[in-house]
Every structure is written in C-alpha cells, then in structure tokens.
C-alpha cells in the first residue's frame, strides 16, 4: 500500500469533491472494479445456491418427505441450477479472468472498458430478473429445462419467461466481457510478451473467451426461439407444427457442455499457476498444458451429444459423442500429469491456495473418471439421468468452481485487498469441504449406479432402497455448505482484518505481482520488457544483480515494489 501521494501521481487537491466509494465502484469501468463486482456477486450467489441445495437435500433426507411441495422443489431445482452455473461458476471464472489477466499481461486497463461495464450490468440485470421471479412464480422446468416442458401449453405461468430472460441477459453480459477481454489480450500485452510467454491463466482467459463467443450466441439463439414460442405463437420446439423438441436439446447442450469445459479450463489454469508458484519452479511443459486447454475447449464442446445418449438420435451420433468425450482423456490427462510432474520436482509450500488446488484436482479426478462411464454408450443408458450423473457433475464442477475457485480466491486475494486470507480458518474450511463433498456425493454414486435412483425427483420411495444413501448425502451437503460458508466468512473478515500481505506475497512468476496491492487504477507506473515466460523472476534477478554483494547468492533478493 502506498501511504500518501506518490511523486508521479500528484492528484491531491484535484478540483471537485470525491464521490462516495460505492458510487465510484458502481460507475467504474475499470477491469479491477468490475472483476471484484463479479467475484463478490458470484460468491453471494454461491451462498444462495447452497441454501437452495440444502432445502432440496432436506426434502430428500427421508423417503416420501413432504417438507417441500413438488412445485416448490422444482422451483428450488431450477433456481439452484441457474444460480450455480450462470450466477456463480461462470461469473466467478470470468471475474477472476477479468481481474487478473490484464494485470498478468502488463496492460494498463482493458481495451473496451465500457463494453465490459455493460457486460457486468447485464449480468446483474439477469440475476435480478431471475430472483424477481419470486414476486410471481419462479421457473419449475429444471436445470436445463428440456422442451417441450417449457412450452406455454405445459408451464403457462411466467417462470420460464423469467428464466429465459435472466439467462439470456447474463449470457449476453458474458459475451460482452469476453469481447473486451479478448481484445485486451490480443492487443495490449506488454512489450515482448509473445503468446508463448503469456501466463497460463491469461492463456486460459483467451481460450475461454473464444469459447464463450462460440457457445454464448448458440444459447442466446435458443432462448430467443423459446421466447418466440412462448409469447408469439412460435413452434420452434413444439412438436406437430414443424418444430422439434430435440433442437432445444442440441442447442442448449452445446452451451452447457462448453460452459462445463470453461469452468474446468479456468480451474486447471488457476491450479497450474498456483502449483508452479508454490512448488517454487516453472510449470512443467507449459506448451503441452496450453495446447491441452485449447483441446479441451474444442473436444468438450463437440461432445455435447454425450448428454443425449438416451434421446432418439442415431447410433452413429452416439459413437461420435463418445469419441469426443473419451478423446478428452488425453488433454485432461496431460494437464494433470504436468501438474504432478511440477510438484515432484518442486519444494512445496503447503499454503491455503495450494491446499485448495490439490483438493480441486482430487475432486475433479473423481468427477471426470465418472464421466468416462457416462460417455460409454451402453453404460450411459444405465447411468444417465440417475443420481450417478448428479454426483459426477458435482464432483467435477464443485471441484472446478468451488475448490478451484477458492484456490484462485486465496491466491489473488492479497492482490485485490492487500491482505491474505486467514490461514487456519482456510485449513478448517478446506478439510470440512473435503469431507462434505465426499459424504454428499459418493452416496449418490451408489444410489444412482446401483439402485437407479432418478435425477431431479422431489421424492423417493422407501421401496427404492436408497434411504440410507440419501440421508448420508443430506448430512454431507450440510457439512459441505458449512465448509464453504467458513471460506466466505474468512474472505469477508480478511478484507479488513487479514494480515498485511505486501505486493508479492507468494513469489509469483507473472506481472500482476509487479503491481501494487491493491493495484493503482492504471495498474502499472512502468512496464518491463518481457523476455521470458517468467518476467517476475527476471525482474528479481535483475534487482539482485544490481544490488548483489560479491558473496551473496544471485536469487536471494526481496520481491520488488
């Protein structure tokens, strides 16, 4: 933190009165402010999504429970899914990309800040519309509401309209942010920062933004068709008048598969930065990891029909989906291999970011291993739409967005606030979450895989032999939620009370650690020439070189700035 005005920034006494902080934040087009809004908002919606999950798990704690009515359960389900994906996981990933990537590439801002600002505003509008549904009737149509259940004939209240508007606004906002970020990453990298020297996390931001430019408009088109169907007598997804319910499945699964991949790309890139930093060495085979991230985006989106293996589509399409899904084993495997290879040659500092990163790898490994089974066509006929798929998706996405997101949060929190998050609470939170995720979702694997308990149902019957599994899963969800809540509390209290971190608390390799904590509005006073993939090491070496005593080893310098 700079105390008092710095010589080159003499702005004290600038005419006009300063506006209150919240007005500054609300009207800011600075990527750091917008990134913080997205991040804080997404963590808030994580809490809301958890409450919805707990209400559903409470309903499913005992057989034939009547705690929630079927309609209330379906509303919670719809809100939970939409909140978890559109209001938590995607904005969390985008918020961190938007905050950190311009800093990492040494940019003094973004290329199209107003576009990013509109994007965040659209996302807030989407969130507002979704929850304004409580004023009348939230959607009852499920997480990915399959047509024709969403047609006016089957759900005639405005819940589905609110859902479609909300997700549409949020998605449009994401696309705007992606355009801004992509332009920035393309045009505003520091001198000398060729693509091969771009930090992995910024590279992942590039890949994710391209991915959003492809999948975002697909969902927007589908939502527009749905709105025309519902409000202007359209027949896009209505059977019998030339429409096709399956069209919705294709379009929506393209988006959801891509979004799933985006969350994992975000998580693995953050994990890669963290593992390298806390191993004290460069990431093994950067090139292979960066290429794998691209492969995941392409193959993962092409595998959209993996979600439709029980639908009336030709067997050839099913094999195609299986081929694309199984091909993902190679890039995911290479990334995990290189992460572990990095750790094997490193000296690990077991701080909270690394702990959460390791938890993320572990949780994602379980989720993706289960997805292998869900991609094998005949096995999928058994496993699809059972709680086994709930468990697989949650292991992968809780691993990616919650564990991976929290790893990134702990890692960049000092940059955003100048303070580190409390270490002991982080550890308690981590182990609680680890126990919670296993308790909550392993029983669902068993209930779905062995007993075929179906997905999304508001009740189950004692005769299904899944009562014990569901009770354990409900308790596990509570434990998981408690663990997550601890980190949220930790983040809130550490903003003011955390230990002061300095500008480079972890010894990171990329340029965000060259800026102040929190960075000035213009990010950097001076920009270094980038000569390698680890500019901060070069800077430290240069400083050490200049200040070196004859007998001192070359890299014992203090971090700069």
């Amino acid at each position, binding site marked *: 933190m700079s105390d008092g005005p710095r010589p080159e920034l003499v702005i004290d006494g600038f005419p006009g009165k300063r506006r209150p902080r919240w007005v500054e934040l609300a009207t800011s087009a600075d990527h750091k402010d917008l990134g913080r809004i997205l991040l804080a908002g997404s963590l808030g919606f994580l809490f809301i999504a958890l409450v919805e999950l707990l209400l559903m798990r409470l309903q499913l704690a005992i057989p034939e429970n009547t705690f929630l009515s*079927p309609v209330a359960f379906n509303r919670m389900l719809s809100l939970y899914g939409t909140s978890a994906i559109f209001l938590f996981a995607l904005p969390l990933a985008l918020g961190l990309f938007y905050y950190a990537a311009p800093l990492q590439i040494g940019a003094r801002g973004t290329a199209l800040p107003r576009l990013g600002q509109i994007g965040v505003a659209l996302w807030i509008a989407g969130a507002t519309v979704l929850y304004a549904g409580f004023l009348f009737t939230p959607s009852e149509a499920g997480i990915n509401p399959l047509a024709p259940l969403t047609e006016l004939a089957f759900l005639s209240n405005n819940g589905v309209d609110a859902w479609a508007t909300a997700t549409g606004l949020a998605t449009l906002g994401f696309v705007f942010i992606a355009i801004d970020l992509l332009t920035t990453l393309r045009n505003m990298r520091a001198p000398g920062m060729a693509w091969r020297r771009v930090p992995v996390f910024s590279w992942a931001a590039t890949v994710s933004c391209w991915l959003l430019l492809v999948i975002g408009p697909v969902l927007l088109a589908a939502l527009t068709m749905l709105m025309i169907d519902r409000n202007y007598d359209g027949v896009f997804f209505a059977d019998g008048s030339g429409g096709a319910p399956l069209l919705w499945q294709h379009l929506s699964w393209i988006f959801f598969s891509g979004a799933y991949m985006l969350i994992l790309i975000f998580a693995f890139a953050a994990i890669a930065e963290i593992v390298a930093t806390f191993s004290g060495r460069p990431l093994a085979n950067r090139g292979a990891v960066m290429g794998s991230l691209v492969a995941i985006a392409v193959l993962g989106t092409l595998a959209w029909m993996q979600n439709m293996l*029980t639908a009336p589509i030709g067997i050839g399409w099913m094999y195609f989906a299986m081929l694309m899904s199984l091909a993902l084993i190679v890039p995911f495997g290479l990334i995990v291999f290189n992460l572990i290879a990095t750790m094997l040659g490193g000296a690990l500092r077991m701080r909270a970011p690394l702990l959460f990163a390791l938890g993320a790898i572990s949780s994602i490994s379980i989720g993706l291993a289960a997805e292998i089974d869900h991609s094998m066509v005949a096995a999928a006929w058994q496993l699809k739409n059972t709680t086994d798929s709930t468990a697989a998706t949650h292991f992968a996405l809780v691993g990616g967005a919650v564990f991976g997101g929290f790893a990134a949060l702990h890692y960049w929190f000092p940059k955003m606030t100048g303070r580190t998050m409390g270490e002991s609470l982080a550890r308690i939170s981590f182990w609680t979450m680890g126990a919670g995720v296993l308790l909550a979702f392993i029983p669902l694997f068993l209930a779905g895989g062995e007993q075929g308990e179906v997905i999304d149902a508001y009740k189950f019957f004692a005769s299904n032999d899944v009562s014990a599994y569901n009770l354990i899963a409900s308790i596990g969800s509570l434990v998981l939620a408690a663990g997550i809540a601890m980190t949220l509390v930790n983040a809130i209290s550490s903003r003011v009370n955390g230990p002061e971190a300095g500008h480079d608390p972890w010894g990171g390799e990329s340029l965000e650690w060259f800026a102040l904590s929190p960075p000035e509005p213009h990010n950097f006073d001076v920009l270094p020439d980038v000569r390698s993939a680890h500019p901060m090491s070069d800077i430290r070496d240069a400083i050490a070189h200049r200040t070196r005593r004859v007998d001192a080893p070359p890299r014992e310098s203090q971090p700069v700035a």
Partner: protein
Amino acid sequence: MTPHSPGTDQIDTLLGIGFVAAAIVVVAINLALIVAVRRNRAKRGGVPSTSSGSRRVQFRVGAVLTVFAAAIFVASVVVTGKARETPASGSSGLAAAKSEPLTIKATGQQWLWRYDYPNGAFSYYKVVVPVDTAVKLELLSTDVVHTWDVPDLSGKRDAVPGKVNEVVFRADEEGTYQGQSATLSGQAYAAMRTEVEVVSPAEYQAFLKRQKADIQTAQDRVVGLIENGEVP
C-alpha cells in the same frame, strides 16, 4: 440393477469395465498427489528443479493416454453393439413372437405410461409381457419428454414427442420389475412410475383376452349410460 435380459447383461459388463477404468484414473491421480506432497514439502529441504519438462515424456504420456482412451472406446463399441442386438425369443417364449419381436406401444404422458398391445387391448401403469420372449417397446410421448427406465430389463430411453424411440428386452424370469420415469416432466414426475409384469405365454394370452373383454364391458357400459341420457 440385477440384469434379467441379454441387453442388460451386456450393460452390466460395460459398467464393470467402466468402473475399472474410473477406478484406475482416480487411484492413479490421487496416489500421485499424495506421493508428490509427502516427498516434496519445502520443509524437507529440497531444492526446486528449474527444468521446464521434457518433450519426449509428453509424447510418451500422450501415447499411453491415447491407448487408454482408445481401449475404452473399442470396448464400448463392441459391447454396445451386442447390447443393441435384438435377442431371439427362447423356446419357452410366446410362439407368435418366434421370428419378430412382440411389439407393444408405450406412450408417456404426464404422469403415466400407457401400453397398447397388438390385439387392441391397453393398460396403464403396468405392462404385462411373456417370459423368454423378445419384446420391443415403441416409446412415444403425447406431451413432454419422458424417459422409460426399468433398469433390470433395459437401458433407459427417452420418449420425445414427434419421435419414436425403442427398447428391446427379453425377460429371463417371471416376476415384477419396477421402473420410474427419468426425465423431469413436471409436478408429479417423481410419482411417474411403471411396472413390468413378466408372466408365462399362456398367462399373457389370457391377460390380453381378459383385458380386452374388460375394456369392452366398460365401453359398453359408458355407451349405455350415454344412450340412456344418464351422462349429458
């Protein structure tokens, strides 16, 4: 799931292969994580390597992963092909379905399954089929997407309005098999269950006759009431 049809036998096999593959992945990754953390803590005093990896190792690891993925793919295609085969009816099955499978129409509607038999009889909720006989269910929907799912007899398949999907099975044992619709279809989705009752061919024939006669009686009664003016 306890397989009671040739198709589900194959699915069971593939699930076993899938479980082994998934277990290999989970165990390998998590074991490697544990080893890496135990061996390389900074407080053990190791010096971090400055190597940025070797390209040759990447190709080897990539090759191993490709072989692993390809093996799963091939195994899935082979087993899925077998699971899709229409089984032949056995000797104790229905004589009329010796060459062609017995075709029954299953129509999903919010929130009930209706089954139409070849002789014009129909039933709701429960379908009665002969044992040891290849049965083909043509899945239709009159409203939203439903999924027909009786795990012991067949993999699940969606009934999508405007499309025809099918499941084929040959029950190997008499008895009652429970199933449940597996796609969210609205309020009473969780209660949208179904039941397959597998009986001997003779009982099946008797059921068809009885069901048809009952439906006829009921229809005659309704028609009679309308003619008598008791129902407006």
